[in-house]
């Protein structure tokens, strides 16, 4: 028995002392390190984490997911998101880290989306491979999105929404919208959209242009006097013209070119504001589509936004007709977002609803947005007449035409303000963007990044005066320590003297 006891002591001693024990210790530590390394690698690959943010910043937006489902199963689709710095560097930049995590979440959900990291500082020649058609020089924080044939370069700021365009005032993450938009743009479905020029239109800097690009349109400018519209045109935009179009009496008939395309399946968006001169040729053409822009300016003091003197007003949704169908999805929301129009002209319906045009087409005109009943319209010209009441500010005319047993559908969206698509109103909190997208979706292009709202960061700012801040700083710094110290002194005194 003594021998057995001694042997067991020796065995225990070997495990706890000596070179064998040292080897055992090193092995255990190595095993823990290996387990950690494997788990970390698996966690990064399989996204083993919980999104604890209030607005689900790292979780794909369900509406974006629904949109991207359209492309699942397509063998030709292969969209690569390329970050221009190694992943360990991205982690240290909060904006890049947010976008990276969200893109990885999308890549986890969709096989056709992949993520890659390149170091453009140490290997700048890598960019030659990816920048096929883009001339933008990316920074280390840029994101290149490519389908193997075309590439788009996004600055990291474009994935966020800021109040004044600077990175110091970002207040929302707009990456879901940008990711969906990038996929749509590179998916190959890029119908042509033209911005008409040469009449003083706002073209290149227009926020509406950015919207169409995000929706995947191939956006081009066109001077109808010198060029012809492509037969593949899906959308034409006349944005804030100042001078009139050339008509039948001129050497080149711009209106005829428009009409020829709209006889097919295409759409026209016209935004005319107060600054436009009289445009008899264009307005005559539009009257055949059922709309007339009155030479008046609307103010609504009861429903105007604060500080706008009635010029910036909240429009009301119509509830009947084709116009109502463009906003039904918004009106069904628990709290419908507002559509805002500013410096608006009233649009009058030339015919009540249905109109048979000369080319065998049937047109239906319907308001989309109106003012409230308390609006007032004052004349733009001296001697003109004013009016009060409810006015149309956005209308839609839909044309149905049969030719050779084929149905052609076209539309005209007319807005009495060019500011409907201003940057300020295209943010997620207003309905303007989604109304435009829904128009495109219903009449022009199936896949648009509609209803994908930015994820707004929580506002951690505090409302307190300097005096309150100083008072509460003193309380936070002194109160609890004073209580603890008091207890300590009491306990110490008791133990020592009692």
């Amino acid at each position: 028995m003594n021998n057995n006891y001694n042997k067991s002591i020796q065995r225990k001693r070997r495990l706890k002392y000596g070179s064998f024990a040292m080897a055992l210790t090193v092995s255990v530590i190595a095993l823990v390190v290996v387990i950690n390394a494997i788990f970390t690698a698996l966690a990064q690959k399989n996204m083993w984490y919980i999104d604890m943010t209030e607005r689900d910043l790292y979780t794909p937006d369900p509406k974006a997911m629904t949109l991207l489902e359209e492309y699942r199963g397509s063998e030709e689709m292969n969209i690569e998101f390329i970050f221009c710095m190694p992943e360990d560097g991205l982690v240290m930049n909060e904006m890049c880290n947010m976008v990276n995590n969200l893109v990885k979440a999308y890549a986890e959900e969709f096989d056709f989306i992949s993520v890659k990291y390149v170091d453009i500082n140490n290997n700048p020649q890598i960019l030659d491979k990816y920048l096929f058609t883009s001339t933008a020089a990316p920074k280390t924080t840029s994101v290149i999105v490519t389908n193997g044939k075309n590439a788009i370069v996004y600055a990291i700021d474009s994935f966020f929404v800021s109040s004044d365009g600077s990175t110091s005032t970002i207040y929302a993450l707009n990456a879901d919208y940008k990711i969906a938009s990038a996929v749509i743009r590179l998916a190959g479905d890029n119908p042509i959209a033209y911005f008409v020029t040469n009449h003083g239109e706002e073209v290149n800097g227009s926020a509406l242009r950015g919207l169409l690009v995000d929706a995947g349109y191939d956006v081009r400018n066109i001077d109808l006097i010198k060029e012809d519209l492509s037969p593949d045109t899906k959308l034409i935009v006349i944005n804030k013209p100042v001078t009139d179009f050339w008509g039948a009496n001129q050497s080149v008939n711009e209106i005829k070119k428009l009409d020829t395309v709209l006889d097919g399946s295409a759409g026209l968006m016209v935004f005319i504001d107060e600054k436009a001169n009289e445009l008899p040729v264009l307005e005559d053409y539009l009257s055949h589509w059922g709309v007339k822009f009155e030479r008046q300016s609307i103010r609504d003091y009861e429903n105007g936004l604060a500080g706008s003197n009635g010029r910036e007003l909240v429009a009301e949704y119509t509830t009947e007709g084709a116009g109502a169908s463009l906003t039904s999805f918004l009106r069904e929301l628990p709290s419908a977002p507002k559509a805002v129009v500013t410096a608006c002209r009233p649009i009058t319906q030339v015919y009540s609803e249905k109109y048979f045009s000369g080319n065998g087409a049937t047109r239906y005109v319907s308001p989309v947005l109106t003012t409230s009943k308390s609006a007032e319209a004052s004349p733009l010209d001296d001697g003109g007449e004013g009016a009060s009441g409810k006015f149309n500010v956005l209308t839609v005319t839909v044309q149905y035409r049969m030719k050779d047993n084929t149905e052609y559908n076209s539309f005209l969206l007319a807005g009495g303000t060019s500011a409907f698509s201003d940057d300020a109103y295209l943010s997620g909190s207003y309905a303007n963007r989604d109304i435009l997208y829904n128009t495109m979706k219903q009449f022009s292009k199936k896949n648009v990044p509609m209803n994908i709202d930015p994820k707004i960061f929580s506002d951690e700012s505090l409302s307190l005066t300097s005096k309150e801040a100083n008072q509460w700083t003193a309380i936070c710094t002194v109160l609890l320590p004073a209580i603890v110290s008091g207890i300590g002194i009491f306990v110490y005194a008791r133990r020592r003297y009692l």
Partner: protein
Amino acid sequence: MFAIFKRDLVSYFTTPVGYVFMAIFLAINGGLFSLMTLQSGSQSSIDGYFSVVIIILPIVIPVLTMKSFSEEKKQKTEQLLLTSPISIGKIVMGKFLSVYTVFSGTFIIGTLFNFMVYHRFADNLYSWVVENAQREGAITRWDVLSHFILSVVGPVIAVLLMGAAFAAIGIFISSMTENQLVSLVGSIAIMFGLVFIGMLNSYIPFEAVRVALNWLSVYSRFNAFMYGIFDFSAILYYASICFIFLFLTVRVYEKRRWA
């Protein structure tokens, strides 16, 4: 183990050590929180507060741990431990739990108090979210508050786990020396090393080395929590550090017992 835990825990509160630690930690914690939130007003940042808290942990935790085993060695009561019928593992765990209880209790009390003060002035949290939540229908104050609490719970858990890891490191260093000052300085050096090692990355051109340093860095692991991600690999990392250093402490004392 419970006897050791209870004895050590009581010793923190029958001597000035525990009270001094709690008072200093609560004062620093409250001061930092006020600086990052109350004094900043419109620029208030809770992430900023947490990123500063993890820098003071390597200073305050060694104050608790420096005497864990060093004192036993200096006062020659180590022999009693080594010859006791309790396993070394339980002794080490008992001491670790007493240190951790004092640290975590102090941090939780301080954080709760600070966030109650924060909530008193955080009206913007409610009005802003409700205003911009048009598409989601009615949101109650409790919805906003619960989401806010969830977003803060992650970093708080990460700080507590980091505290556990640092406590384990401090106890290990304490077991290696009988001089409390050496234990204090050694612990601070190692903890700061782990916190700041990731900051060397910008100077290192080799990706494999950068990945390894990021993997080791306590601060890099904590970043995910500040961004609102509850990262399970980081949880395992902190638990592993805790395990490794407690294991090493046990090995050190096993060697002494059997030598």
